């Protein structure tokens, strides 16, 4: 072969690497961040990465006037802990990280065909700003039949294969959509996710806002817009790797040092913190809590029992007596859909004072709500989700399960959704308590157990479930998408 051609190719490729653009790299590092390539290198197992579109170029105005190297992002297939993962990162140094939709669509096609998880670093302002007359223009009526485009592709992946978005900068419009469609969204402080960036807001509303005032990660952490706020990109990448690890079982890990003393973590005297109870139930140091600052009266997260991945849904008696408001119902609903999609059995710990509804307070301009006892469609939709889930659940009633809370947390305990086992601790409240039932019959559970037995009990039950890989292999279609809210 003509050596010159190979050299030319290598030269072109070399121009794409960080080493060829020290100024851009210095700028990224100066902001305390990683370059697109560094992010991928840190995410994937060493020497596992295969690049796609390394020298892709774009025709910026669609007029054929000249092609320029597409540095808006990098795309790879590689492995995380030995399991295949697709990884893509926008590159904010290149014209604001506008994505080349065609490249992501290619990756989505691969993810769909192979059911490979995707990790997407999405910071940027959406599709590239172009002259409005030649830009996105009129939406095209059709593309290649059956081929996924960016957003329908993301919608199709939802519930079929896991998607993780890492947002460590401003992320607006289409970028925010990619995050919205992702199962798991990790942000870093100072980043923002919004439908329109500050210039759009200024144009639409005539107000000037900073990205943080507009849609900062700290706001999203409280309102449920993200699943996890990580300290920086390193921690975000570690969290993504950890999240993906729960798709696979491992060898049994050691029990928590407090495992035998779990009963002592529950107080008869008043509210207690459920987090240590969860940790004592799981393999040591395996609890990964999601949406920690949102709807804090319920807890959701992943963990392991004897190495088997589980999704934990638990009341948090410490916060509002574990009452379930609209946000708490939303938090449970999405988590149950997530676990159902990816075959992660549920462990449900119930100790809740009841369901409540929130109403705007006309006397308070700060948006604070009036909270009243009651249920609405937010609660009901979780019951419906449980009714249609197929993944198993072990239910442990610890204390109160007032009103409709047991249904919202665990589903109707009848028919399609019977728990693998419905357990109670001796602390379970029985008797006439509220306007939902007049009597709680202790015979309604499968067994009342010593709290110290719970971990072993759940481990034994989980051992009866079919292997996740076999279940996945048997599926020809997804169960359902994971609701973005």
């Amino acid at each position, binding site marked *: 072969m003509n050596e010159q051609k190979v050299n030319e190719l290598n030269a072109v490729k070399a121009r794409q690497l960080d080493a060829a653009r020290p100024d851009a790299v210095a700028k990224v590092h100066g902001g305390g961040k990683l370059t697109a390539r560094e992010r991928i290198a840190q995410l994937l197992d060493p020497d596992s990465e295969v690049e796609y579109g390394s020298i892709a170029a774009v025709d910026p105005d669609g007029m054929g006037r000249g092609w320029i190297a597409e540095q808006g992002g990098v795309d790879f297939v590689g492995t995380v802990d030995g399991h295949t993962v697709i990884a893509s990162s926008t590159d904010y140094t290149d014209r604001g990280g506008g994505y080349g939709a065609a490249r992501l669509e290619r990756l989505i096609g691969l993810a769909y065909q192979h059911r490979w998880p995707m990790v997407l670093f999405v910071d940027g302002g959406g599709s590239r700003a172009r002259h409005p007359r030649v830009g*996105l223009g009129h939406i095209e009526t059709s593309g290649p039949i059956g081929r996924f485009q960016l*957003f329908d592709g993301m919608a199709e992946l939802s519930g079929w294969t896991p998607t993780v978005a890492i947002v460590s900068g401003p992320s607006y419009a289409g970028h925010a959509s990619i995050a919205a469609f992702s199962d798991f969204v990790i942000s870093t402080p100072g980043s923002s996710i919004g439908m*329109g960036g500050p210039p759009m807001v*200024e144009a639409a509303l005539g107000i000037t806002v900073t990205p943080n*005032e507009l849609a900062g990660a700290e706001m999203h952490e409280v309102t449920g817009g993200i699943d996890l706020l990580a300290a920086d990109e390193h921690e975000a990448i570690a969290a993504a790797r950890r999240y993906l690890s729960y798709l696979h079982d491992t060898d049994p890990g050691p029990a928590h040092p407090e495992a035998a003393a779990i009963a002592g973590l529950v107080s008869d005297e008043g509210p207690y913190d459920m987090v240590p109870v969860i940790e004592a139930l799981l393999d040591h140091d395996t609890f990964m809590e999601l949406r920690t600052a949102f709807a804090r009266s319920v807890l959701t997260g992943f963990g392991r029992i004897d190495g088997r991945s589980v999704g934990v849904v638990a009341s948090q008696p410490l916060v509002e007596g574990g009452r379930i408001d609209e946000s708490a119902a939303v938090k449970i609903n999405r988590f149950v859909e997530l676990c159902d999609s990816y075959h992660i059995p549920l462990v449900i710990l119930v100790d809740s004072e009841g369901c409540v509804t929130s*109403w705007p307070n006309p006397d308070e301009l700060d948006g604070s709500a009036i909270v009243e006892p009651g249920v*609405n469609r937010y609660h009901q939709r979780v019951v419906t989700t449980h009714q249609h889930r197929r993944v198993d659940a072990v239910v442990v009633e610890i204390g109160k399960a007032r009103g409709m809370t047991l249904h919202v947390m665990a589903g109707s305990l*009848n028919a399609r959704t019977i728990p693998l086992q419905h357990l109670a601790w001796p602390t379970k409240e029985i008797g006439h308590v509220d306007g939902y039932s007049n009597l709680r019959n202790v015979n309604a559970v499968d067994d009342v157990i010593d709290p110290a037995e719970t971990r072993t009990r759940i481990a034994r039950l989980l051992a009866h479930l079919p292997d996740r890989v076999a279940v996945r292999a048997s599926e020809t279609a997804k169960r359902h998408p994971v609701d973005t809210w």
Partner: protein
Amino acid sequence: MANIDSSSTFLNSRSGRQLSEDPRQQIIDARADAWAGCPRARPRIEGLVDPGSFVEYGLLAGRTSDVDDDGPSDGLVGGVGEIDGHPVVTAALDATVVEGTLSERNQRKLGKLLYLAITNRWPVVLFVEGAGARRDDPLPPPPIVQYTRARWDVLDGLAELSGWAPTVAVVTGDTLDAGVAMAVACDTVVGVAGASLGGTPEGGGQSALRPVEDHALRGDVDAVVDDDGAAISWVQTYLHHWFGTPGDGRTSDRHDTVASIVPDNRRRPYDMARVVEAVADADSLLELGARRAKGMLTYLGRLGGIPVGFFANQPRSPRAGAIDAAAADKAARFVELCDAYELPLVSFVDNPGYMVGPDAEREGIARHHARPLSALHHRTVPLYTVQIRKAYGLGPFAMSGYGSSRGMPTLRLSWPSVESGGMSLEGAAYLVKRREIREASSPEEARRIRDDYAEDMRDVASGVRAGRTYSFDDVVLPEETRERIISMLRRWHRVLPDSKKHPVDGR
């Protein structure tokens, strides 16, 4: 428990009738007593179903098992009837009998009826009122929240029906706790003016009740009507869409106005309801969620006599038709409802994009916006879409799905007034002329700079270009729209799939 041998001494506590010694007469009397009970529930059911069609279940099932029981039909009248010949399961709670409370027995009755609805794919209409679970129920716990094994309980049954056959709750009076749970477990909730929904604090105390109008604002009640009669005809009209009952297909008198609704001035709002009314069959529209998210209109209606669902942006709304979190939820739920019950969708699109700004973000638009996109993508019913004016950013996708793959509309039309782009012209003006606009001497001057640029950038022939680029299947005149959609709609045949596609999301 009553002693049967000495039963002749019992008097029915309501009618005062003495128990006959003839078993046949005993039943005749007991029935008469039961029929005389539930004076609120029975007329509602009689009004809903065809005369003579009602087969009652559990007429004699009482509050107690006593021969002289004082709780006729245990406060819940239920059975199977027909609406214009179509079977429907219906039940009504009666607040005059033990405060309309839910008991083990009346919920067992309802569970049985829901079983019939599930196995036969019959719709369910529940008239709901009352104080929730019965606190002094002498029987085991009511299955509305607790369970007895091996059969559908009520919440299960309603959740199971979601997306399989329509369920409608009519809130006829003050309803508390588990009664509310039952109502909101239905796909569709109709509130009768004057009725309220609420909850009771733990440990008892004053219940918090709010009128159905408040719940409609929040999206937990889909329609508020004046009285029982209006509720019944609303439900009948609603269910005829599920039955697939053809309409007469008459063109509306307002169709003549269709070409003059959209103002020449591209920035002037107009009432999208007029467009829907002009295009839909005469007198065919039934609005859902009229009080919620006013930027998004949703209706069941007919086109050429065929039942369809319409959803449309409302430019004449506080956020000018921009899709906010509530509007996105409303659209997503409506698409799911129509898809589950196999009703084709027709959308009228005119939005400046998704809502932006700190308020919209706090409401969660960055996540909620994906819900209609997902609902449209996963639907299988045909979608016919008409782009009327603005199509900017991702907004149009929320109304008309994507270009290809699973979400492609059957027909994508636009009107000559269409304009589209990655962002609005005014938005583009801000990006390009930001500095000039900021440094303008007055707000008026800033607006003039923006508008001049927008006008300069405006594609004066955007309608033609929409056709040239094959962005739409056709660019039609407004007056041609109705016939064009009907023509394609007639070639579609409604076939209910053998299994449930998906439940209908309550939110």
